């Protein structure tokens, strides 16, 4: 099992414990967001905003020792929680793994039901942007 899938399974397990109580699930996601490392104020610029999200989401990335790292922030706690899950799964992985990742945990934990269809589009935009960063780093590595 790939590292990405191992982390996905871990998250699915955590959400299973919460059951189908929406209130505790939402509070839990928000708490995950609270634990994200602080995002530098200087990076909260237009260029780092992900288009297609209802909330404001800033995302930056870096390449360290061949692995892609992500940092993100949002003006809403729920979005911050969601992106913290994506970061947990994808950050620190090789570009190739990120590009090919099948993020099945999102459906498994019932995210669509929790955040509604409009927010789900935002989540798709976040994933797309993370994969685009990985594609760019891969090109850079191979250049």
């Amino acid at each position, binding site marked *: 099992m790939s590292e990405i899938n191992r982390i996905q399974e871990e998250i699915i397990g955590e959400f299973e414990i919460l059951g189908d109580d*929406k*209130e505790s*699930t939402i509070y839990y996601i*928000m708490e995950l967001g609270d634990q994200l490392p602080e995002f530098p104020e200087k990076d909260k610029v237009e260029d780092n905003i992900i288009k297609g999200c209802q909330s404001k989401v800033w995302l930056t990335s870096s390449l360290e020792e061949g692995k892609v790292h992500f940092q993100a922030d949002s003006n809403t706690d*729920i979005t911050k929680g969601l992106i913290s899950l994506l970061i947990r799964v994808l950050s620190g992985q090789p570009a190739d793994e990120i590009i090919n990742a099948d993020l099945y945990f999102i459906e498994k934990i019932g995210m669509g039901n929790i955040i509604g269809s409009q927010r789900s589009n935002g989540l798709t935009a976040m994933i797309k942007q993370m994969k685009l960063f990985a594609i760019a780093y891969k090109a850079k590595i191979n250049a």
Partner: protein
Amino acid sequence: MNDLEAAIKNNSGIIVEDKIREYFPILHQEVNGRPLAYFDNAATTQKPTQVIEALRKYYELDNSNIHRGAHTLASRSTDYFENTRHLVREFINAPSSEEVIITKGTTESINLVASTFGRAFIKKGDEIIISTLEHHSNIVPWQILCEEKGAILKIIPIHDNGELDMEAYRQLLSEKTKLVAVVHASNALGTINPIKDMIRQAHAVGAKFLMDAAQSTAHLDIDVQDLDCDFFAFSAHKVYGPTGVGFLFGKRALLEAMPPYQGGGEMIKEVSFEKTTFNDLPYKFEAGTPNIGDVIAFGEAIKFVNKLGKEAIRDHENLLLKHAVERSSEIKGFIPIGTAKEKVSVLSFGINNIHPFDVGLMLDASGIAVRTGHHCTQPLMDRLQVEGTVRASFAVYNTIEEIDRLIESLKRISKRKN
């Protein structure tokens, strides 16, 4: 007491919460494992069984296109359709049914005036006055018109509590003012504007006055003749009726002088390829097949409101608002937004350090429905220097117990960051 009053009110004429809720089937459900508390009434109200039944009956028994039909169903649906127009005339005390135009909603009513009155009577250099409190639907049509005509849009500022600056309004009015278009009650804050006074002042400089009454018609007594407004727009779905139906009252002389809105069937008298003559009021402004079933069903909503009485409705809603305002002081970090002296039953607020959307999501998880965001009033949000608010808006079927649940949930939500 009529039969509905007897079923819903106690001996002192006060609405009994449990009894009125029986008429609104949608309220009897659980959302996210908790009983639904619906506080999004300024967006749309729920519908009583009388309205739902009328809609079902229309499609089961009466469905037919109206006017000019040679058969029984057509004549029946026409009668019912026109009966709603008649009920609306009474409801707002318009002088005649011909002055009541049926539209898709408040937005279309306002656009109708901008496109027809505006096209015919607004010229370069003329001024149109709106206010900071306006919904986008009472801003954008006038912006488009002003752009086309080279006219100027002037904005009445507000005080910090969400009341209009009436001194500034007086100063904006001049012989250049051709139209004032102002909301009766603010959708975002609930502020009730001193509309009658504003209309009098507009008329004193020769300007016409359009009232956006989308948020007031369900709560306040409306008499367009007493108010003396030139145009009056409202939507059925905010008055316990179906969506997709609205009304425009206009004074007869103005409506007759205005060109038609859209071309098509219904609005013509005679058509040849050389020349078309237009139909009489109100049909001149009603091109195409209207939303017949929903218009007919709205008649039942008016009867429902009339039977309960606006005074009893207002008394109940005021009680709810007062209770909510009093208890809101228990919530740490509660920031009231809009504290005008005269308000409809809207509680708009923020919670310190928590985004309105997060508040809305957490309330929803407890079965409580509110609206969050800019409420289609971005210029107002800019003026108040907030990104958006949380808005709980109360209707006749809400209860004190539901408000207590709202307050307890907000106390818990606030604890996350306060």
